[in-house]
């Protein structure tokens, strides 16, 4: 995973609330048991006039002149709600999106972003609205260490928990990190087996 330090890139406004993961990557675009090969299906229902023949829809923001190289999305409330499919994040990452600014996010989507090098940023509604209404295209600078988003005449700071921040900044493997807690996990399991034996009585032989 590519570490996230600072990013200066074009931000594409998607001024809609509740953009769900079915829209980000329609289920029919998930064609193999794989995390790759998904960028082409990103926003397929909106990006193409007819998804089947891949004719670009000129009205969709990522197809408009000046937004071809967008690496940031700006959207409304509850971005990434709906299905838990991580394919939505894989598709965005493969397409080249590195950060998403929104008023709020679906919880699962937010976590998925931080596991795949995409920085999800929550800003207050008024600040997001000013970005959505700025004359396009806007170039935003995001500094993860300082937790700021800036553009000419625009400055905002955002919150992020220490753990996802560290994952993003260092491009870390969270499983490897948690394995450092194995002594505590083992200790927990030993005690819990005594206290709640029914949790552990599911040997596959009983299938």
């Amino acid at each position, binding site marked *: 995973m590519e570490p996230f330090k600072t990013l200066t890139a074009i931000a594409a406004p998607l001024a*809609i609330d*509740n953009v*769900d993961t*079915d*829209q980000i990557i*329609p*289920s*029919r675009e*998930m064609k*193999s*048991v*794989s*995390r790759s090969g998904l960028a082409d299906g990103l926003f397929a*229902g909106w990006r193409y006039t007819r*998804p089947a023949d891949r004719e670009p829809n000129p009205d969709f923001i990522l197809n408009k002149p000046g937004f071809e190289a967008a690496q940031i999305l700006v959207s409304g*409330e*509850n971005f990434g*709600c*709906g*299905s*838990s*499919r*991580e*394919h939505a*994040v894989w598709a965005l990452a493969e397409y080249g999106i590195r950060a998403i600014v929104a008023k*709020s996010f*679906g*919880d*699962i*989507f937010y*976590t*998925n972003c931080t*596991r*795949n090098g995409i920085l999800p940023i929550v800003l207050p509604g008024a600040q997001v609205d000013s970005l959505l209404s700025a004359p396009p295209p806007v170039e935003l600078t995001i500094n993860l260490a300082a937790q700021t988003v800036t553009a000419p005449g625009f400055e905002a700071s955002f919150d992020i*928990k*220490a*753990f996802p921040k560290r994952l993003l900044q260092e491009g870390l*493997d*969270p*499983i490897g990190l*948690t*394995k450092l*807690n*194995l002594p*505590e*996990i083992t200790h*927990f*399991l030993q005690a*819990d087996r005594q206290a*709640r*034996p*029914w*949790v*552990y*009585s*599911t*040997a*596959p032989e*009983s*299938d």
Partner: protein
Amino acid sequence: MTQAQTLFDKLWSLHRVADCGDGVDLIAIDRVCIHERTGAVALKGLEASGHGILDPARVFAVMDHIVSFRSGRGRDEARSPGGEVFITETRRLARKAGIHLIDTDDPRQGIVHVIAPELGIALPGLSLVCPDSHTCSLGALGTLAWGIGSSQTEHAMATGTLRVARPRQMRITVENSLPSGVSAKDLALHIIACFGVSGGQGCAIEYTGEAVSALSIEERLTLCNLSIEFSAFTALIAPDETTIDYLQGRQYAPDASMAAAAAANWRQLHSDQDARFDHEIRLDARDIRPMVSWGTSPGQSIPLGSAIPADADQQALDYMELRAGQSVDNLAIDGAFIGSCTNGRLSDLRAAAEILAGRQVAANVRAVCVPGSQAVRQAAEAEGLDQVFSDAGFEWGASGCAMCFYAGGETFPPGSRVISSTNRNFEGRQGPGVRTHLASPATVAASAVAGKITSPADPLFAA
């Protein structure tokens, strides 16, 4: 004196392995469920990274999402073109990993959230995760269950834990009793319509009150199922005698040697009298009527017999080909679907069959019923419900997610208007251009017969 705790507080501290700082805890995961659509990729990821599975005996793989719903389907038959690979890869990887596999031809097969309670995989007090957002359904049993992504699924399988930020807590108390003919589905849609799709954002929600206690386990599952559409982290209902009775004798429920100890443990799992929540909502069940969605988000729902709000979202209206101020009653439909993890259980099929008995689906309506699991299907057939559905003109499918979501392949045609017992009415959810109206199984059945959106309370259905 110890501080009064909520049910959620108790479940959280029961599973807290370590404090990771910054409001994040390392939480022990008792069960991981995966399905072929998002699970195979997690098994593959683990294989590639070389991390093993900590305890394969507590991981369950289920085939549900893209299995064909054709009665008499083949073992690898998918409903979406090229979908077989998800089935065959999941089977191969699950066997190799030594986890439980509930295959397409297993009599226990069904939608993961339907079979987890049926088999006692979900139990009160357990933590359970699955790479599927409707995992919150299982809170109906007092299970701390929530949906995650594939990377976190790998993490849970490899370490038996997840790092989770402790969510805020909300209590929704539903007082008095639901009027007759009003279901758990109507209650859930009512809540989302009143408080918006972001109303429960990030919260662990406990449902309580007289109307909730009176619900059967199946109805509780329906109520909790829709909590993700309310943006909740998850939902919970305190286990009670209804829960304990329901779980008796199920395959992975505690056997006779442990049943009494388990039940005693479960009876402690409730919010203390003075426990405090970050948000409290109180509702009167008597205010709730049969609901139907008009738009492209579950929050865009109204009681049958009322009008679409004047300030309705234009993009949703355009997609649904509707106008603000219009009523949805009597809108002609092209399709009707009964099934899914929301309303694909035996009581749902019974409610629909009650309306369908001795009646016919209107001409031009394609009506499909897909039981949520093979056990549901079998039980329904034992009561002759399959006959009622077939005689009325419904197709009778083999269990799985079926037409709840579109994955390519067979579905309703573009532009068609479908009344559906599912949980999502997003653009294209049931197929490109398909217009989905969410409703209870009884309303779906009544509408299928009338050929237009119709309340089950319509005089047409007076006994």
